[in-house]
């Protein structure tokens, strides 16, 4: 009986550990307060244009804001960012990770909100090296900033 007892104990322990690992995790990250537009925009920029020049980061923020103003897209920042399939940073969950308020992407988001728009009203951008959609190439390229093409 003793030998079964031991392995039974081991089994129980494993079950316990595994339940901790695999059970749905509750309340990840900061859940306090309202997320401001700046923070939401900064998270999107962080996911989409982290390694880009500063201007390129502002440009991605500007595209999101241009979509808010366009009849072809939802009418709020959250609506545009969370539109299914619109941004990879949303699909892979990066959008829900808080960003340090002193980081560069927050400054870029702030500048975009304050009206800096290096794209002059563009609604789309894509990385020509990785873009999979053939359709996106039907857009007219307005400007290239860093790795991204911006179009209307």
């Amino acid at each position, binding site marked *: 009986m003793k*030998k*079964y007892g031991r*392995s039974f104990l*081991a*089994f129980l322990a*494993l*079950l316990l550990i*595994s339940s901790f690992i*695999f059970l*749905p995790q509750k309340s990840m990250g900061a859940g306090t307060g309202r997320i401001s537009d700046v923070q939401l925009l900064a998270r999107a920029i962080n996911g989409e244009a982290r390694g880009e*020049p*500063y*201007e390129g980061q*502002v440009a991605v923020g500007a595209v999101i804001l241009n979509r808010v*103003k*366009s*009849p*072809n*897209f*939802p*009418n709020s920042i959250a*609506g545009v960012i969370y*539109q*299914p*399939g*619109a941004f990879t940073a949303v699909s892979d969950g990066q959008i829900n990770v808080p960003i340090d*308020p*002193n980081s*560069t992407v*927050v*400054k*870029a988001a*702030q*500048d975009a909100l*304050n*009206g*800096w*728009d*290096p*794209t*002059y*009203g*563009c609604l*789309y951008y894509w990385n020509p090296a990785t873009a*999979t*959609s*053939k*359709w*996106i190439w039907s857009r007219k390229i*307005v*400007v*290239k*900033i860093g790795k991204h093409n911006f179009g*209307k």
Partner: protein
Amino acid sequence: MGENRVIENDGKVCQDKETYYRTINWNKAKNVIIAILLLTTIFGAYQYDRANKLKNHLNNTYNRAFYELVDYVSNVEIMLLKTMMTSSPELTVTTLRELSQEAYNAASNLSQLPVSVGALSNTEKFLSQVADMSQSIARQTVRGVPMSDEQYNTLASLHKFSLELEKSLNELKNDLSNGNFSWDNVAKEGEEDFSQTSEEMPKTFSSIDQSFSEMPTLIYDGPFSEHMQNRNALGLTGQQVSENQAIESLGKFLGKDKINNVTKLSDNKNGIIDTYNFKIELAGKKEHSVVEADVSMKGGHVIWYLYNRPVGDTTIDIDKAKAIGLKFLEDRGYKNMKDTYYLETNGIATINYAYTKDGITYYPDLIKVKVALDNGEVVGFEAKGYFMNHTERNLAAPKISQQEARAKVIRGESIKASGLALIPTDYGTEILCYEFIGKLEEKDFLVYINAETGAEEEVLLILNTDDGVLTM
């Protein structure tokens, strides 16, 4: 170690022990394998169940968005017809507002469907414009101007489109409820090239969207009106300049002694203000010394620049910063500018300046200057508003006095006047108004009374008052 010693001392016991240990080892291994198998099965079953639940949850969310969309679109169709039949202004306004609400809801639900961005772009535009335009006609009706024949005809044509959309959506709805397609497949289709029709789907979203490409161009008093998309830069003066001339004017603007190296990154042919895009390395700085800037091809004006650098402790107060910004603008030929608003974040003040002349503040002619509050350096400039709108205007003299205008403001005692202002509407026109500023529930607000008609044109509430301050 203990086991080995037992074996040395007594062979017989040893043999028994060996068998004994072998059995125990085998049992142990068996138990572990069974445990692992059990765990994997439990884990697998649990994960499968969870994934299935999540999938169902997601499908239900999409189904809800879609079924609601069908209802909203059906309401849009009915309300469009209704607006064409109502005659009393009261009922017309109510119906138009309801129509607008239904169309907005439809647009909002449409954007929640897992269809790739762009696939339903024309459909979204149709709904947004119906919502926007009915608001515009409602405003007009309130002012006592009845619907024109042209507007009636536009509504009639929009109704035809809404009928078509309703029909297509109902076909999809049938397929969805018959289980002919699920949102998983639509989402997958969207990831690839959605112009290819999937065999699984009898009528794709792209073909629905296609029917809207022949939508008439809608011009009306609203932000989504077509004329807002193609505006000219009224304030952009001068001849076409070469790249070298653009670099020259960039040198004048930033100070030649401060520039180490200029690289042209690209030509920005946006059709609104075509520009050369430059990267400038600053002289005498160690790190983060890159300025990015746009110089217009017409006239060689600096349209904007940004200099992102770490900002140290604040040593400059906002009044000093405003004076620095004003001097910066004056030195570069922008006279008669007045600061109207500023926002302070991360040690940087972003100050708005508007053009003023003869006591009138021209809000459309807007320039923003970023001043770093550690040493007063100007780290950003943005003048698109100025270049889009600044022009010699022939404004009619106000027909009503400031006193008359003030009498129209509710709770006038808490309010102070700040004179005449030209304000932009969200559909591209400008109105001369008396501007009044006040505070309500700790929030700054602005009231604009039309200087010609006395109508209350706009009430603006300034949000984020913890960061941003009105400076009039």
